[in-house]
């Protein structure tokens, strides 16, 4: 796809609304590791190529008229929604899922901006801390816990994603760069 970037557009046919859950399950739920890895790598590479080819802005706060951006955003939002419930339940098979986010974060500014808008760092740290996370206050969330192996590839992928986001963070200039409590806002 790097060599013939327009071929990445074929991937958009695979993330039409009726196929979104199937595509997400292929990356996270499928019992075959090689297939999870392959589909994760193809998906992240195709998305990164399309973003780079058309210089797309994945700003989810803007109303998007570009159908390609909408398709990609729908897929990313669905995928992101799997943290923490599905990734907790499927922790042992989620290495490829977190590999997707690692490679997505490393690819460019548009990707980093999208992840900042979604509070990805907080989502990942909350997931790693499990029931010790300050974000989990409701008793019903206690069920959302698994034993995280800290030396697993899944955790390494999560840590690399967080490191990339921190490394690439930039404070937003001007008034938009300050939150209501006066702290700096990053993208």
């Amino acid at each position: 796809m790097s060599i013939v970037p327009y071929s990445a557009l074929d991937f958009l046919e695979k993330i039409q609304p009726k196929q979104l859950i199937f595509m997400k399950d292929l990356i996270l739920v499928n019992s075959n590791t090689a297939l999870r890895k392959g589909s994760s790598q193809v998906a992240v590479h195709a998305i990164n190529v399309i973003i780079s080819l058309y210089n797309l802005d994945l700003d989810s706060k803007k109303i998007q008229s570009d159908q390609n951006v909408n398709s990609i955003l729908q897929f990313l939002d669905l995928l992101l929604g799997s943290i923490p419930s599905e990734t907790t339940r499927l922790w042992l098979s989620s290495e490829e899922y977190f590999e997707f986010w690692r490679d997505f974060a490393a690819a460019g500014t548009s990707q980093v901006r999208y992840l900042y808008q979604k509070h990805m760092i907080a989502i990942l740290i909350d997931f790693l801390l499990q029931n010790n996370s300050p974000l989990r206050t409701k008793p019903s969330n206690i069920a959302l816990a698994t034993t995280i192996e800290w030396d697993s590839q899944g955790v390494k992928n999560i840590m690399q994603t967080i490191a990339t986001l921190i490394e690439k963070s930039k404070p937003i200039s001007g008034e938009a760069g300050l939150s209501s409590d006066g702290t700096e806002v990053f993208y």
Partner: protein
Amino acid sequence: MLRRHIFSKEFFSFLLSICEIIKTPELASKDPTTIIYSGHLNIPPKTQKSYQLLIKLLMELMYSVLGCQECEELANDVNINDLQHLHSFN
């Protein structure tokens, strides 16, 4: 019956042979932010077409054949580590 043939070592060897016949240029940059090959506009249209067909073929194989739920059991019966070669055609 057709699916049993698809999940055979012979079929995967055949696909790999096709992949090996179509030579792709060396991607010099390992930088993840350089996503598109800088020389992609200089590739002759016929060669581009063959790359495109190969990508389409592998994508269909993964998403339409191997990924379908009915095939999950069959896919697990056969060692499909060959699929990992897919990433080199990204």
